[in-house]
């Protein structure tokens, strides 16, 4: 065996690890012009960007007539909801702000800066020149309620957990009662007067909330050992997932009235809601099933060993863990449903997109398609992007996938 001396590289002085520091030119070289073909690619891209962006900006700031949006802002937001009842929508929003503020204070007590940044957005809305003073006051109130909720949560984080849960669970029925009305106190506003962004959001919320329990049952049914129950669940899920949402809406619109006894009359909005729920339940079931499959077998075995029966195992051990894993996926489902609600415009509802068509039919705004559709596209984009950003944060906060 040869005896080798280890080579001596040590020069006696310890060099610091190389730090990556670039000048502007260095950065440009590394990221844009590192090779000859990247240089060509960069230049061509810049040129294409120039010829696309310049006329677009030129159009947006000089030729476009945004008056159509400003004049019809209320239509876009709440549709034909009676103007003297709009305060109810605001109350629902304030309650939401209060709940969200409280949740923020409990779950992200340290993230003050992001919270403050979010609170700036309503103030920005309040500063818009063309909105009414009533809306201005309400946007400010929105922030006040959010801060109130946040303050309560910071003051008594432990004591506020239970009220927050109650508030979250009670929010949906309160919301529906507020918007629809209760006989002696609040005037009933028929669903055919609901419209605009409010209808879009309501359809999405109703769709997710009501399809949630149905989806859980279908998911449990699909994993059940009872062949008839399993067959029924699989058939339902696969048939619904195999057809487009429009066809389900078509069916709800035309066949639902036939299925019901003749005394019961339901209007378009309720029919669309039923269609959305039927459709979403199948997708919800698959999402929940994903969560159920992620639960290790040991959990079942441990529960059985403790003497829990099938019902107890499912509802006390398995579902709570599965649903926790599913939360980010549910947010994503909510986002795609939020976008899919546009399809109700096809069956004639006046959601954000449906309202856009009626606005374009106004004689003074003929030919303003680009402005209107860009505006509603922007609203959809802001909501979806904010929600998907939040869901990514939520995933980190919940620590899904890491244990």
């Amino acid at each position, binding site marked *: 065996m040869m005896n080798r001396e280890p080579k001596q590289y040590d020069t006696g002085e310890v060099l610091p690890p190389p730090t990556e520091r670039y000048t502007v030119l260095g950065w440009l070289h590394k*990221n*844009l012009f*590192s090779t000859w073909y*990247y240089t060509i*690619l*960069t230049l061509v*891209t*810049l040129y294409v*960007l120039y010829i696309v962006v310049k006329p677009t900006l030129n159009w947006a700031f000089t030729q476009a007539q945004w008056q159509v949006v400003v004049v019809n802002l209320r239509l876009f937001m709440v549709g034909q909801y009676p103007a003297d009842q709009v305060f109810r929508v605001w109350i629902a929003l304030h309650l939401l702000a209060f709940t969200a503020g409280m949740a923020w204070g409990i779950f992200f007590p340290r993230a003050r800066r992001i919270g403050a940044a979010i609170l700036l957005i309503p103030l920005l809305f309040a500063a818009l020149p063309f909105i009414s003073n009533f809306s201005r006051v309400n946007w400010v109130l929105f922030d006040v309620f959010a801060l109130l909720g946040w303050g309560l949560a910071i003051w008594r984080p432990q004591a506020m957990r239970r009220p927050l849960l109650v508030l979250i669970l009670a929010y949906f029925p309160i919301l529906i009662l507020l918007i629809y009305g209760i006989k002696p106190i609040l005037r009933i506003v028929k669903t055919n007067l609901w419209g605009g962004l409010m209808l879009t959001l309501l359809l999405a919320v109703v769709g997710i909330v009501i399809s949630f329990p149905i989806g859980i049952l279908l998911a449990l049914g699909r994993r059940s*050992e*009872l*062949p*008839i*129950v399993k067959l*029924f669940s699989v058939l339902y899920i696969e*048939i619904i*997932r*195999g*057809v*487009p*949402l*429009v*066809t389900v809406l*078509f*069916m709800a619109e*035309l*066949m639902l*009235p*036939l*299925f*019901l*006894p*003749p005394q019961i009359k339901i209007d378009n909005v309720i029919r669309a809601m039923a269609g959305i729920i039927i459709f979403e339940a199948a997708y919800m079931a698959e999402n929940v099933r994903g969560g159920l499959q992620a639960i290790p077998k040991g959990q079942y075995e441990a529960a059985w060993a403790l003497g829990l029966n099938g019902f107890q195992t499912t509802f006390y051990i398995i579902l709570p863990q599965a649903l926790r894993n599913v939360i980010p996926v549910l947010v994503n489902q909510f*986002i795609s449903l939020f*976008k*899919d609600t*546009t*399809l109700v*415009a*096809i069956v004639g509802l006046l959601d954000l*997109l449906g309202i*856009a068509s009626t606005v374009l039919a106004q004689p003074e705004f003929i030919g303003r*398609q*680009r402005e209107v*559709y*860009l505006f*509603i*596209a922007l609203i*959809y*984009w802001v909501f*979806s*992007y904010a929600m*998907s950003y939040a869901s990514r944060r939520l995933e980190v906060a919940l620590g899904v996938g890491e244990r």
Partner: protein
Amino acid sequence: MMKQASVPFWRDERVLAWIAQIVFLVVTVAFLWYLYHNMITALAERGLLPSFHFLKLTAGFDISQHLIPYDRSSTYGRAFIVGTLNTIEVSILGIIFATILGIIIGVMRLSTNWLINKLASLYIEIIRNVPLLVLLVFWYTGVFLQLPRLKEAKFLPGPTIVSNRGIAMPWGKPTSTWHIYLYILLVGFILAAIVWWRLTLIGKRTGRMPLVSLWSTLTFLGVAALGWIGLVIFAHQAPLAPDLPKIQGLSTVGGLELSPEFLALLSGLVFYTAAFIAEVVRAGIQSVSKGQVEAARALGLNGFQTFRLVVFPQALRVIVPPLTSQYLNLAKNSSLAVFIGFPDLYSVAGTIHNQTGRAVEVTVLMMSIYLSFSLITSAFMNWYNKKIRFVER
């Protein structure tokens, strides 16, 4: 050991499970029967008891685009087929273009060039967060209907006529030798298949796989080109005569005419789905571990070989399942065509319902057609997925 008989039947789990299922079945069937009974009663009042006889009646409405002969004296059944074919046409074209664009954007998203990378992510973030229907309406009313009127139509080289009536492109018209040419193409296809088979055999025997796809494609193209030249020389007639569009009165004549509805639907579907496919492609390529690339380079493969032989086959396994669901989404999303007036299956079904009032039959027929698309596509993709699956050794 405890005897089975010692458990009374009301505590025997198997018996209980069956009782539960029977109760479930009875309740479900009773509920469905109740709905069915209500429906039949309501339909009987209107004199519209379910039957598919109406499919043989004359439709009496026009469909602006049809791949098979159709006019207003055709039957409802034929109208259904026309709508279905339109849906299939736009879905297949959409899938092809969306895949190409999606791969390009997905690769751009992985580029180390900052500008290209950011541009691709900007595209993905914008498109994914806007509803498809809004995009479609924007393409239709904001782009294709805003093109100049036919009088001031733009002429692109070709000539291609671009106006708010759509785009008319030069196309080929089959001549008398077309059917001979079809046989030549068939021969070319068979030859290409033989080349494929032989080269694969050689590759397996020698262990050096030639460029199988390239050579077989070249064989096919070679036969196609030779056949064309041969027909021109010997039969003095090319199989396709150029068919150039021109403006005649208030419309264009000749060539391939693409309506603004069709173009808007196709662009909307392609640009929307491409954003999702790009993310699928990116995730697939990123899922291949870096060690694989380093190992391939260490074996002496060059960049292209590394991608073709090592990265791509492994990425494909991750890509195919989500890609399938994107394809299915595209096919299902084509039903939004009705909002911009393209006569797809849903739109035609809607018209038929308006004319006949046969809600139940139309719904059932339409849903079964969409369902069979989905089932066929997913069956095919499952088969393909099984074929490329990782073989554990």
